[in-house]
C-alpha cells in the first residue's frame, strides 16, 4: 500500500516535470504580450487565438507546413528505398574485397560525425547545384543524412530474418525479387516502420541545414520558420509561443499515434 502511494507520487511528479513547461508555452500562446511581460499571470486571463491567426495571416506558417511535409515525405521515402536495398545487400551477400563490410562500416562512421561538420561544404555544394532555397536541395541533403542510419537499422532487421527462408522459397521456384517481396519484406515490415518513424521525426525536426540552405518561405521548413520568430530584438513572446505550439504539434501528434513502433525504433540500436 505504501509502495503504491509512493509510486503514484513519483508518477505525478514526473508528469508535472514533463508537462508543466509545455503547459506554460501553450498558456503563453493564448495570452497577449502585455499579459506575458507585464502581468506574469499563471494562466491566460483573456485567452485568445489571435497569436495563431497572425502566424497564418501575417507570417507564412502555411507555407512552412507544406514545405516540411513535402520535404519530410520525399526524403524519408527515398532514403528508406535506397537504404533498404543497400542494407539487404550488406546483410545477404559476401562481396569481393569485403566490400559490403567496408560500405557498412563507412556509413556507420559517417553517422558518428555530427552533421555540423559538413555544413559549410554542403552549403557550397547546393549553391553550385543551384539548389539553395528549394525543396530538392533539402530533400537530397536529408536523404543522405538519413541513409546512414536507415542502412544500419535495416541491416540488423534483415540479419534477424534467416536467409534460409528466402532460399527455400527460391528453391521452390520464386525469383529472388519475389522471394524478397513474399517472405523477407513482410517479416521486416515492423523494422521498416520503426526506421521510417525515426527518420520522419529526425527529418521533420532538423534545423541546422534548413537554417543554412533555405532563406525564404519558398522552402523554409517548420523549425526554420519558427526560428524567424525567436528574435532578441523586440521579442514577440506571444507569437513565439504560438509558433512553438504550431511547430511541434504535427510531429508530437504523429509520434503519439505511432508510439509503439517508435519506442522500438528508438531503442533498437542500443539493445541489440
Amino acid at each position: 500500500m505504501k509502495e503504491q502511494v509512493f509510486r503514484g507520487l513519483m508518477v505525478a511528479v514526473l508528469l508535472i516535470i514533463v508537462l508543466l513547461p509545455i503547459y506554460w508555452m501553450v498558456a503563453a500562446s493564448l495570452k497577449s504580450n502585455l499579459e506575458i511581460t507585464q502581468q506574469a499571470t499563471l494562466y491566460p486571463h483573456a485567452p485568445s487565438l489571435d497569436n495563431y491567426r497572425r502566424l497564418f495571416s501575417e507570417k507564412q506558417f502555411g507555407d512552412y507546413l507544406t514545405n516540411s511535409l513535402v520535404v519530410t515525405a520525399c526524403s524519408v521515402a527515398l532514403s528508406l528505398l535506397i537504404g533498404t536495398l543497400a542494407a539487404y545487400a550488406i546483410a545477404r551477400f559476401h562481396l569481393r574485397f569485403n566490400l559490403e563490410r567496408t560500405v557498412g562500416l563507412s556509413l556507420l562512421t559517417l553517422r558518428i560525425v555530427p552533421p555540423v561538420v559538413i555544413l559549410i561544404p554542403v552549403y557550397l555544394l547546393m549553391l553550385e547545384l543551384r539548389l539553395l532555397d528549394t525543396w530538392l536541395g533539402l530533400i537530397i541533403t536529408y536523404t543522405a543524412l538519413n541513409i546512414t542510419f536507415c542502412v544500419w537499422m535495416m541491416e540488423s532487421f534483415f540479419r534477424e530474418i534467416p536467409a534460409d527462408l528466402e532460399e527455400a522459397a527460391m528453391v521452390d521456384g520464386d525469383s529472388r525479387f519475389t522471394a524478397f517481396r513474399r517472405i523477407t519484406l513482410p517479416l521486416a515490415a515492423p523494422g521498416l516502420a520503426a526506421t521510417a518513424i525515426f527518420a520522419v521525426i529526425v527529418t521533420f525536426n532538423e534545423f541546422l541545414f534548413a537554417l543554412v540552405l533555405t532563406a525564404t518561405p519558398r522552402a523554409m521548413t517548420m523549425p526554420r520558420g519558427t526560428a524567424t520568430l525567436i528574435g532578441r530584438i523586440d521579442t514577440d513572446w506571444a507569437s513565439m509561443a504560438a509558433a512553438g505550439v504550431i511547430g511541434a504539434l504535427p510531429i508530437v501528434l504523429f509520434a503519439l499515434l505511432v508510439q509503439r513502433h517508435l519506442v522500438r525504433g528508438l531503442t533498437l540500436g542500443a539493445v541489440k
Partner: protein
Amino acid sequence: MSVLERLRSRERLQGAGLDAALPYLLLAPSILVTLIVLVYPLWDGLRASTQFYRYGKALRDVGLENYRRLWDDPQFLNSLWVTLRFVTASVAVETVLGLALALFCAREFRGIRLLRTVLIVPMVITPVVVAIVFRLIYASDAGMLTAFSEALGGSPVQILGDPNRAFIGLVALDVWEWTPLMFLILLAGLQSLPVEPFEAARVDGAGPWRVFVDHTLPMLRPVIAIAIVLRTIDAFGTFDQVFVLTRGGPGEATRLLSVFGYDTAFKFQQTGYAAALFLTMGLIILALALAAVRMLRRAGEP
C-alpha cells in the same frame, strides 16, 4: 533435399550474370548519394581548411596554419571546454536519472502506460521548440520561474544572465529533453534480461541493492555503455537548442563548438578557419567513439 543439392542451389542463386551484379546494383544508389552529399563535402571542407579567407574569398593557401591557430585561440579553447563540460554533465545526469527511472518502471503497474506515453513527448518535440519552451521558462521578465516566484511573493528569477546558471539551465534543458530516451533504452535492456539469475539471488536471500549491484548492473552494462556512447555523440553536435536559448551567452558561457563554428563560418566569414574547426571537432568525436567502442569490446571479452 540433400546437403549437396542445397549447396549447389545456393551457388546457382549467387551465380553469374545479373545475379552477380545485383548486390553492387543494390549498394550503388546509397554509395552514390553518400559520396555526393557526405564524402565530397568532407573532402571539400578539408581543402577549404587549408585556405585563408577574407570577405568570403579564398586568398591564399596556408597549409595547416588554421589548425595550429585553433590551439592558440582562447575562444576556441573556451568553446571546447564548454562543450566537454556540457556533454559530461548532461550525459552523466541523464544516465543516472534514466537508470533510476527504468528500475522504477521495470515492473508493470497502473499509470505506467500513461507515463511512457508522456515521456515520449520531450524527445520528439522539435529541438528549436524545446529551446523556446525553456526561454519561456527562464526569461527573467516573462518566464515561468519568475511568475511562480512572484506568485509566492519572491523576486524575479535570473537564469540566463549569469554564466553558471545559464550553463546549468542549458544542461537542464538537455536533461529534460533526453532523459526519456535513456530511460527507454535502459528499460528495454532491463526487460530483455533473463529472469533466472534474479530469482536465484532472491532465493539466496540477497537484498534489492545487492541484486542490483551483483546482477542487474553487470548484465546491463553493455546496454548502458552503448546508450552513453550514442548520447555522447549526439550531445557533441548540439546546436539548435543553444542557438535559440542563449546564442552562446552570457559572455561565452554556453558557446558550444557547434555555435562557435557556425558564427565563425557564417557571421565572421572566416570560412577556412571554421572548416578547420569543424574537422577538428569531427576528429575529436571520432576518436572518442573509437575509444569507447574499443573499451566496449574489451569489456565484452571474457
